[in-house]
């Protein structure tokens, strides 16, 4: 009760502070009056009485202060007072304030944005009900590590173990796909899942329903469930979507529901799933080959999760799966002989779902990369912070006089430090707010781009807490040292401000250390940038073994317009004839997909002579008649595809010289045979050998170096053509426009998927490495700019402090050159040390990167790590640039000091 009373009293005294304050004044005033009256009554004249009353009374303000203290509101008052005073001060120094807030805002913004990505990928909670009873099941790869479940049949066998699993579900790894909406083709990420999906996870569709068992049967009409984010963003949360039909890869799909609002997809990495379809729809949607479309067995990488039965443990589930693994090996021997990306061994691994974030093999590298990126932006924050600290130091020194006046007036050092700290905290909080705005704005910008997937970045509480903590830590760490230093002044010396300032000859001062750190970190960042520029250059210089100039492509998909396959073929032939007739067109051809799109496939080579054995990995590229001529790929032996190669004639292939040499042991491999590893009836005869194209499109980058490659023709493969590629003697851009006109002339309703020149396609495929290089370059540049601002501030301040000394020296006949030199020498030393440290760290980082990535560039999971060369020229260039910028920052104020008239300099305060 008493506690409540005190609390109430304190709250009241804070809330009604102004009222209390005037009450207190009035109360004390009355006291004085009564005292005066009393003294007057003893016979003193009025004025005399008042003075004596005042004397007796003592300090009115002190009493007020003591009364306030008695109420326990003093710390609050002090905080309010410090904040007000700090704000006034910062508003007055608005130039300094805006610079500091901008610097911090950029750094905190970059950190917040990056953290929000990491947050989206790694830290978001899973919304599953009772997650402790969920397990993940993986078939192991050849080295015994958990990988993926490779077939629907294997999943079905797992689901049979109902004594340990209450329910089991499977979902394919996300498939890139496309659908027609509002007359435009949109990219979509599709997951093929089982009817049990939501029940196992303990989720509920936010609208409509999930598909049921009958809809999961092969041959059932395809139904789908939209992702919640997609429904909101693309379909504007239209509730009438349920029951509507959308065409995905040309196939009609009836929407029956919208997915759970808090669930983005099976792999929760910030990419949202746009559509869930029944797993049996997988061959229909993803396969371009009618033969595999009707195949009864579904082979696809699947994620399998199960809910443990009451009482069952992960260990029991593991024991059951060990038995199943051996049975699968006996029943599906072929599955375990498959080579290539998804080669499995009979082992099966069961892991508690809570122990896995993305995938047991990908979690560690993902964490590593996330922390690497966080370290990089952290470096920028470090520069910004040390920069702010330098600015505060300089400002603190400039305020030495104010500080000493306040100390002389009776302020305690603690009060002053608290006050200065409040200022730096206000600055860093301002920076934090600016940072959050910048980060939010940046993320809006990213999300407004139509990427081939839905990115779900939100500023949730974790990101905000991160930004706030970051601001506080920044404010305290980098405000405390300058505040302590600023309040440690020699009162008399500063107040008199006369005589020469003792020149600081110490080398290891806080300011010097900060400058060295800033320069070193900027060099490190620039060094990091140089690695990525190198990477970019490395991909650029790959030989492009096909024509680029004058080549244009146009991709459409007649399935979206509802054409049957035969009708579509006729339309394409018509379109091809019209494009060949465009003036200037030298050659044109049809193919499925875009040119140089590569698929890695395991193949079996007949009568092998090479060392690798008969089962090897090859890159498969799509082509057709006219393809090699259009792209000017030189034929070395045999012939290329033509009208003789039809669906009813024996299968043929054109291979590269590299494949001929490596897999057939001779350049002239015409007449030799090979087949797809998983299809014994797919023997194809080599009819020609062409020059290796050098590069191909593996991971959205046309300039990926490719494995030994072969081409197949759409006239035999069953994959319907979608793209016309043509070469003109004139301008490729004009050809693109002309081709689009022809397309509209054939059928105005046909959607254009791609209309581009080959040059643009090459350019566009480098967006990712370019973005990384730009990102790091911007960070490095930002760091350098920040470091030079800090340098400039420090040097100009040091020079200003020495103006009097400089004036005397000038008056005594020193030449301005000598003065400038004297100053520049000191600064050059600092920059030299900073640059040296930065270079050393850069080389260390590169060596570390080389050590972790082994030989050449290799892939960890889906992330490839590049092995950088230590490029002495680039490092030297970075060092020189840094040194020049640094010295220039020092030179300007030094020049100004030396140019000053000696008299002015002497009077300079």
């Amino acid at each position, binding site marked *: 009760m008493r506690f409540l*009373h005190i609390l109430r009293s304190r709250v009241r005294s804070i809330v009604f502070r102004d009222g209390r304050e005037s009450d207190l004044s009035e109360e004390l005033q009355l006291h004085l009056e009564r005292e005066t009256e009393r003294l007057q009554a003893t016979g003193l004249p009025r004025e005399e009485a008042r003075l004596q009353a005042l004397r007796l009374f003592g300090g009115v303000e002190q009493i007020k202060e003591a009364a306030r203290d008695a109420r326990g509101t003093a710390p609050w008052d002090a905080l309010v007072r410090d904040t007000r005073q700090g704000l006034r001060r910062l508003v007055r120094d608005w130039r300094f304030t805006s610079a500091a807030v901008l610097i911090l805002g950029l750094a905190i913004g970059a950190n917040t944005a990056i953290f929000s990505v990491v947050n989206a990928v790694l830290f978001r909670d899973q919304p599953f009900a009772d997650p402790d009873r969920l397990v993940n099941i993986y078939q192991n790869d050849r080295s015994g590590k958990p990988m993926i479940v490779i077939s629907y049949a294997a999943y079905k066998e797992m689901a049979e173990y109902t004594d340990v699993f209450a329910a089991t579900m499977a979902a394919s790894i996300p498939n890139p796909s496309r659908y027609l909406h509002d007359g435009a083709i949109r990219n979509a990420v599709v997951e093929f899942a089982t009817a049990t999906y939501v029940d196992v996870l303990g989720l509920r569709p936010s609208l409509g329903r999930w598909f049921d068992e009958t809809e999961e049967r092969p041959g059932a009409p395809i139904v789908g469930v939209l992702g919640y984010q997609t429904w909101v963003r693309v379909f504007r949360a239209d509730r009438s979507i349920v029951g509507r039909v959308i065409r995905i890869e040309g196939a009609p799909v009836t929407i029956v529901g919208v997915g759970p609002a808090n669930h983005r997809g099976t792999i929760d990495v910030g990419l949202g799933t746009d559509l869930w379809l029944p797993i049996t729809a997988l061959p229909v949607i993803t396969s371009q080959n009618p033969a595999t479309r009707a195949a009864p067995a579904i082979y696809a990488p699947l994620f399998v999760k199960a809910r443990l039965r009451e009482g069952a443990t992960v260990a029991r589930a593991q024991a059951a799966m060990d038995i199943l693994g051996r049975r699968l090996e006996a029943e599906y021997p072929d599955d375990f002989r498959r080579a290539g990306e998804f080669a499995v061994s009979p082992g099966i691994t069961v892991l508690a779902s809570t122990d896995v974030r993305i995938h047991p093999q990908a979690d560690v590298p993902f964490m590593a990369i996330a922390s690497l990126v966080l370290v990089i932006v952290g470096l920028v924050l470090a520069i910004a912070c040390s920069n702010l600290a330098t600015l505060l130091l300089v400002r603190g020194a400039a305020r030495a006089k104010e500080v000493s006046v306040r100390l002389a007036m009776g302020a305690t050092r603690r009060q002053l430090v608290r006050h200065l700290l409040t200022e730096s905290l206000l600055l860093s909080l301002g920076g934090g707010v600016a940072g959050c705005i910048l980060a939010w704005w940046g993320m809006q910008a990213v999300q407004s781009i139509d990427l081939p997937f839905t990115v779900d970045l939100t500023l949730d509480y974790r990101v905000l807490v991160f930004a706030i903590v970051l601001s506080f830590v920044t404010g305290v760490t980098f405000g405390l040292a300058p505040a302590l230093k600023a309040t440690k002044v020699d009162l008399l010396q500063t107040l008199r401000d006369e005589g020469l300032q003792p020149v600081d000859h110490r080398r290891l001062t806080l300011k010097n250390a900060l400058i060295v750190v800033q320069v070193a970190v900027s060099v490190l960042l620039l060094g990091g940038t140089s690695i990525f520029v190198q990477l970019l250059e490395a991909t650029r210089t790959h030989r492009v073994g096909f024509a680029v100039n004058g080549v244009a492509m146009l991709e459409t998909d007649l399935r979206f317009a509802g054409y049957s396959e035969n009708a579509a073929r006729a339309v394409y032939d018509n379109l091809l004839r019209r494009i060949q007739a465009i003036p200037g067109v030298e050659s044109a051809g049809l193919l499925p997909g875009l040119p140089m799109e590569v698929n890695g496939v395991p193949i079996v080579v007949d009568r092998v002579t090479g060392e690798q054995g008969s089962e090897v990995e090859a890159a498969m590229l799509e082509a057709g008649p006219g393809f090699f001529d259009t792209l000017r790929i030189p034929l070395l032996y045999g012939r290329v595809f033509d009208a003789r190669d039809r669906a009813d004639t024996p299968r043929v292939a054109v291979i590269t010289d590299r494949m001929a040499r490596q897999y057939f042991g001779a350049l002239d491999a015409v007449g030799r045979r090979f087949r797809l590893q998983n299809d014994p009836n797919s023997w194809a005869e080599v009819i020609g050998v062409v020059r290796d194209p050098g590069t191909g499109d593996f991971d959205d980058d046309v300039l990926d170096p490719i494995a030994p490659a072969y081409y197949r023709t759409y006239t035999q493969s069953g994959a319907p053509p979608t793209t016309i590629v043509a070469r003109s003697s004139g301008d490729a851009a004009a050809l693109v426009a002309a081709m689009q006109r022809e397309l509209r002339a054939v059928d105005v309703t046909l959607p254009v998927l791609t209309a581009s020149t080959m040059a643009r396609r090459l350019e566009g495929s480098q967006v990712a490495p370019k973005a990384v290089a730009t990102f790091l370059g911007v960070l490095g540049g930002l760091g350098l700019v920040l470091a030079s601002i800090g340098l400039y501030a420090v040097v100009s301040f040091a020079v200003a402090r020495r103006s009097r000394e400089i004036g005397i020296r000038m008056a005594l006949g020193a030449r301005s050159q000598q003065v400038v030199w004297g100053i520049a020498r000191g600064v050059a030393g600092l920059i030299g040390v900073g640059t040296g440290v930065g270079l050393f760290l850069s080389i260390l980082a590169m060596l570390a990167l080389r050590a972790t990535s082994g030989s050449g560039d290799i892939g960890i999971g889906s992330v490839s790590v590049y092995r950088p060369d230590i490029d002495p020229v680039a490092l030297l260039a970075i060092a020189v640039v840094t040194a020049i910028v640094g010295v220039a920052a020092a030179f300007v104020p030094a020049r100004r000091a030396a140019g000053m008239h000696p008299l002015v300099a002497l009077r300079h305060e």
Partner: protein
Amino acid sequence: MSDQTDVLQGTLDLLVMRTIALEPMHGWAIAQRIQQISDDQLRVQQGSLYPALHRLEHQGWITAEWGASENNRRARFYSLTKAGRKQLETEVEKWERLSAGVNLVLRRT
């Protein structure tokens, strides 16, 4: 004036509470009353009176109300609360025990 004694820290609370136990009073009157009753032996410093009043109010032992002073000005009149009366009793008891003890010590040595 020099034979006046400043009120001891700690006993001020007791004196203030005892004084306003009879009737509500404002600050100046409290100081005057303590001085009068003690035959000018005790002097209350304003510097400690007002903080003491605010502290006692904050602790809930006394409350203040605005009223008219003898010269017809607005003044804060302090009075004891219920908890204050109980507190006063314990404080008086404590003081009596203490002063009895001190007296005993002074007389017997």
